[in-house]
C-alpha cells in the first residue's frame, strides 16, 4: 500500500501541475471548454484516488472543487478571474493536504477551503439549486439523526426470467440487501412451471424481504439499480423502528400477495412519524418487455466501430525515468565493451568488419537512448507562467511572458536541475528588472513589461535566453557596492564585464533590503554554480533603461559525449568535441616566441594554456605539439597537448571527491583496454587558469 501511496503522491503532483497549466490558459480565455473539462476531470481523479489511498482531506476538498467546476462546466456558474485566482490558490493549498497524518492545521485549511468554495457557489446566480456538496452534507446529517432509530422496509423482488443470462445472480442482490442490516427473507417458487416446461437457465423464483436498517430508501433502491428495468421490484417503508421484533407484522408481510403491498403502508400510516409522502415510499417498476438498450448490430454501427478502432493509435507510452536511466547506463556499458572489441580488431583483422558493424549499431543505439531521455522545455513553461502571474500581481506590475522555442528538447537530468536557476532569473527580472507601471510610463515605455524566454539548439548546446525590457542593471551601483564589499579597490579600472561577473559572486547583493521575492532561497552565485555543474555557462547583457538579457548555454546531454582523445605527458585526456573549433600544430619555436602565452594564428591572437606544463612539474618536451582551439565566452582559447589521436565516444563517469583538481574534469572514462582517461571540463579549466 505504501508503494501505491507514494505513486499517488507523484501522480497528485502531476495533477497539480496540469491544473495550474489549464488554469493559466483559462485566465486568458474563459470559454475554453476543453480546459474546463480537464480541470473538472483532474479534480475528480484527485478526489477518487485521494480517497483510495487514504488522503481523505485532499479528497474532501477536491470533492467540493469538482462540484464547483461541474457547475462551471454546465454553465450554471460563469467562469471569471475570481474563480480562477481562487482555484490557483486552492491548488497551492491542496499540496499541503497531500499528507497522510493530517494535523489540526490541515483540518483547519480544509474548513477554510470548503467555506470558500461554498461562498463561490452561493454567489453564483444558480445558488438556488443546491450544490451537490451541500446536499451530501444534508444526507450525512440525516443519517446521523437516525443512527439510533433505524427503519424497516419491505422488499418484493421478482427478477425477469432471463436474469441469469446476462450474468446477474439474483441471490447476490438478496445477499447485498441483507448486509444493510437485519433481515428476514422468504423465497417463493409460485411461478415455477411444470417439469416439462422447466428451463434450468431461467429464474422462476421471487423474494420477499423485510429489512431493518440505518440506510435510507435510496440505498435500498440502489441494490436493484441494475435489474430494475427488467424486474418487478416493490419497496415499502414500513415504519421507524424494528419491525422484525413484531412477529405478527412479519407474518402479514410474508402472507400478502404482491398486489397488496400498498396496504402495508396504510396500516402503518399512523405509526410512522415524519413519514414522507407516499409517492416517495414506493418504487414500483414493471418489467420492460423490449430491451430498448440493445440495438441490433447494424451496418452503421459496424462502420462506426471500425472508425473508432482505426482512430486508436498508441502514440506514446509512459516509462518511468528510472528505466530510462538504466537504459542509458546499459548503452554506456555497451560503448565501453565495444571499444574493447575495437582494440581486439586492431590486432586480429578478421574481427574488423564485425567491430565496425557493432560500432555503427551502438552509435545508433546511443542516439536513440539520447532521444528518449530528452524532454521539451515546455514542461517547465507552466511554472514560468505561474511565477510571472503571481509575482507581477504581488508587486503590482504588469508583465507579459513571451516564449519561443520551448519545444526544444534537453536531457531530463538537465531539466531537473535547471528549474530553480531559471525561476530565480525570472524572479529577479520581475522584481528588479521590470519597473513599476508609473515609472515605465514616465520613461516613455508601454505600461506592460515583457519577459521573453527563448530556447534554441546551437550545435551540441542548447541556448536559453531570458530577456526583459526593464531598467537594466545599474553598473555604477554594482561598482559602488563591489568596492564597498571589498571585491575591488576604489581606484581599480574595472571593465563592465568584470562588474557583471560580480553579480555571480557569493555574498553579493545590491538590494538594500532583501526583498521577500528575489532575496529568498538561491542567489545568483548558486544560479551560476548550478549551470556550470551542468557543464553550461551563463552570460549577461544589460543596457541601462532598456533591459537585461541572460543567456544560458547548456550541453544537450551530460552522460555520453563525443570527445577527442589526446595525450598530455604520458596520460590520456579527452576534450569534448562540442567545444572544439580548430586544431593547429604548434612548434616549440612558436611557443618560445609567444608573449604571455598568446600565439597568433590566421591573424587572430589566441591565448593558450600549456597543459603538459600545467599538469606536471616535468613536462614532456617535444618539437611539435598541438593546440586545440576551443571556444569560450565568444572568445577563442587554446589547449596545448602532446598528441592528438582520434575521436572517441566517452562514457563519462563521475569522479570521486578524493581526486584533487577534479573540478577541472567532467569525469573519467574507461577505454577499451581498461585504461582510465580524464575528460577535461573546458570551461572550468580556462576559468581557473586564465584568471
Amino acid at each position, binding site marked *: 500500500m505504501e508503494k501505491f501511496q507514494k505513486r499517488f503522491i507523484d501522480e497528485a503532483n502531476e495533477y497539480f501541475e496540469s491544473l495550474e497549466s489549464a488554469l493559466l490558459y483559462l485566465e486568458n480565455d474563459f470559454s475554453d471548454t476543453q480546459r474546463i473539462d480537464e480541470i473538472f*476531470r483532474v479534480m475528480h481523479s484527485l478526489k477518487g484516488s485521494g480517497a483510495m489511498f487514504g488522503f481523505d482531506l485532499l479528497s474532501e476538498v477536491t470533492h467540493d472543487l469538482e462540484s464547483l467546476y461541474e457547475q462551471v462546466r454546465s454553465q450554471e456558474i460563469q467562469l471569471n478571474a475570481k474563480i480562477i485566482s481562487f482555484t490557483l490558490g486552492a491548488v497551492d493549498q491542496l499540496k499541503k493536504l497531500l499528507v497522510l497524518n493530517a494535523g489540526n492545521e490541515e483540518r483547519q485549511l480544509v474548513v477554510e477551503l470548503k467555506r470558500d468554495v461554498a461562498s463561490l457557489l452561493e454567489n453564483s446566480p444558480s445558488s438556488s439549486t443546491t450544490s451537490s456538496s451541500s446536499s451530501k452534507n444534508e444526507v450525512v446529517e440525516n443519517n446521523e439523526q437516525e443512527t439510533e432509530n433505524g427503519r424497516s422496509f419491505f422488499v418484493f423482488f421478482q427478477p425477469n426470467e432471463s436474469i441469469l443470462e446476462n450474468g446477474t445472480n439474483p441471490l447476490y442482490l438478496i445477499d447485498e440487501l441483507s448486509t444493510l442490516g437485519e433481515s428476514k427473507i422468504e423465497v417463493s417458487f409460485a411461478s415455477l412451471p411444470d417439469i416439462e416446461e422447466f428451463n434450468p437457465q431461467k429464474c422462476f423464483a421471487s423474494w420477499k424481504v423485510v429489512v431493518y436498517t440505518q440506510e435510507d430508501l435510496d440505498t435500498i433502491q440502489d441494490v436493484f439499480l441494475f435489474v430494475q428495468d427488467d424486474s418487478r421490484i416493490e419497496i415499502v417503508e414500513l415504519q421507524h423502528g424494528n419491525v422484525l421484533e413484531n412477529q405478527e407484522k412479519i407474518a402479514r408481510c410474508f402472507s400478502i400477495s404482491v398486489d397488496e403491498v400498498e396496504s402495508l403502508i396504510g396500516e402503518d400510516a399512523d405509526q410512522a412519524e415524519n413519514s414522507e409522502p407516499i409517492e416517495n415510499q414506493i418504487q414500483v417498476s414493471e418489467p420492460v418487455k423490449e430491451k430498448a438498450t440493445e440495438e441490433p448490430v447494424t451496418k452503421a454501427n459496424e462502420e462506426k466501430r471500425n472508425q473508432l478502432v482505426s482512430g486508436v493509435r498508441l502514440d506514446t507510452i509512459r516509462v518511468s525515468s528510472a528505466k530510462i536511466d538504466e537504459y542509458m547506463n546499459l548503452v554506456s556499458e555497451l560503448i565501453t565493451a565495444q571499444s574493447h572489441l575495437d582494440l581486439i580488431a586492431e590486432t586480429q583483422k578478421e574481427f574488423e568488419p564485425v567491430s565496425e558493424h557493432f560500432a555503427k549499431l551502438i552509435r545508433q543505439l546511443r542516439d536513440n537512448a539520447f532521444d528518449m531521455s530528452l524532454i521539451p522545455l515546455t514542461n517547465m513553461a507552466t511554472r514560468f507562467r505561474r511565477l510571472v502571474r503571481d509575482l507581477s500581481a504581488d508587486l503590482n506590475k504588469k508583465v507579459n511572458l513571451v516564449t519561443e522555442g520551448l519545444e526544444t528538447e534537453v536531457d531530463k537530468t538537465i531539466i531537473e536541475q535547471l528549474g530553480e536557476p531559471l525561476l530565480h532569473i525570472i524572479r529577479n527580472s520581475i522584481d528588479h528588472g521590470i519597473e513599476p507601471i508609473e515609472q515605465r510610463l514616465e520613461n516613455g515605455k508601454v505600461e506592460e513589461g515583457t519577459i521573453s524566454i527563448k530556447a534554441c539548439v546551437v550545435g551540441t548546446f542548447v541556448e536559453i535566453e531570458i530577456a526583459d525590457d526593464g531598467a537594466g542593471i545599474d553598473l555604477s551601483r554594482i561598482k559602488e557596492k563591489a568596492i564597498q564589499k571589498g571585491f575591488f579597490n576604489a581606484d581599480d579600472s574595472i571593465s563592465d564585464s568584470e562588474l557583471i561577473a560580480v553579480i555571480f559572486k557569493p555574498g553579493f547583493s545590491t538590494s538594500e533590503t532583501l526583498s521577500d521575492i528575489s532575496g529568498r532561497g538561491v542567489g545568483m552565485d548558486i544560479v551560476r554554480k548550478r549551470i556550470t555543474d551542468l557543464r553550461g555557462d551563463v552570460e549577461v547583457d544589460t543596457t541601462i533603461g532598456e533591459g537585461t538579457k541572460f543567456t544560458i548555454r547548456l550541453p544537450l546531454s551530460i552522460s555520453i559525449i563525443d570527445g577527442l582523445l589526446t595525450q598530455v605527458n604520458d596520460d590520456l585526456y579527452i576534450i569534448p568535441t562540442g567545444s572544439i573549433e580548430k586544431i593547429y600544430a604548434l612548434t616549440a619555436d612558436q611557443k618560445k616566441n609567444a608573449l604571455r602565452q598568446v600565439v597568433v594564428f590566421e591573424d587572430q591572437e589566441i591565448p593558450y594554456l600549456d597543459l603538459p606544463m600545467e599538469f606536471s612539474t616535468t613536462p614532456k618536451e617535444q618539437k611539435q605539439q598541438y593546440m586545440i582551439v576551443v571556444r569560450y565566452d565568444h572568445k577563442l582559447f587554446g589547449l596545448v597537448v602532446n598528441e592528438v589521436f582520434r575521436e572517441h565516444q566517452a562514457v563519462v563517469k563521475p569522479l570521486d571527491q578524493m581526486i584533487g583538481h577534479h573540478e577541472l574534469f567532467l569525469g573519467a572514462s574507461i577505454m577499451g583496454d581498461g585504461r582510465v582517461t580524464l575528460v577535461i571540463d573546458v570551461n572550468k579549466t580556462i576559468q581557473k587558469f586564465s584568471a
Partner: protein
Amino acid sequence: MEEKRKKVIVLAEDSKSIREAVAFGLEEHGFEVYGAEDGKLASALFDGRKVDLLLTDYHMPNMNGLELIKHVRSDERYQYVPILVLTTENRKDLILETKRAGATGWVVKPFKVDKLLQTIHRIMR
C-alpha cells in the same frame, strides 16, 4: 494437464496509482490485467483478444467510460463480457446511463481490493 488460462481483465482508469494498485491486487489473485489510461487506449485492447471482464472508470480523457462501454458493446464478440464501472460517487443518473449502455454493475470508489474481488467473482461466476 493443460494449465488453466488466466482470466483477462481490461482496466481503464486514468489515475495511474489506482490503476497500478488495482492491477497489483488482481494479478495477485491470478488475473491477467491490461491497464489503459483512457477509454481510447482501453478500446484498442479489445482487438479480438479474449477479455473476461472490463473494469472502467467513468471520467477519463479522450473517451470516457460511457463511450467505452458503448464501443465495446458495439462489437458482437464482446456483447456478453461483464463490465464493471468504477465510479467515485453514487450518481444514479450516471450509473443508469452506463447500465443502459451495457454495464453489468458498479463499484463505488474508494473501495478495498477485497471488495472489488468479491464483486468480480460475483459477476464472473
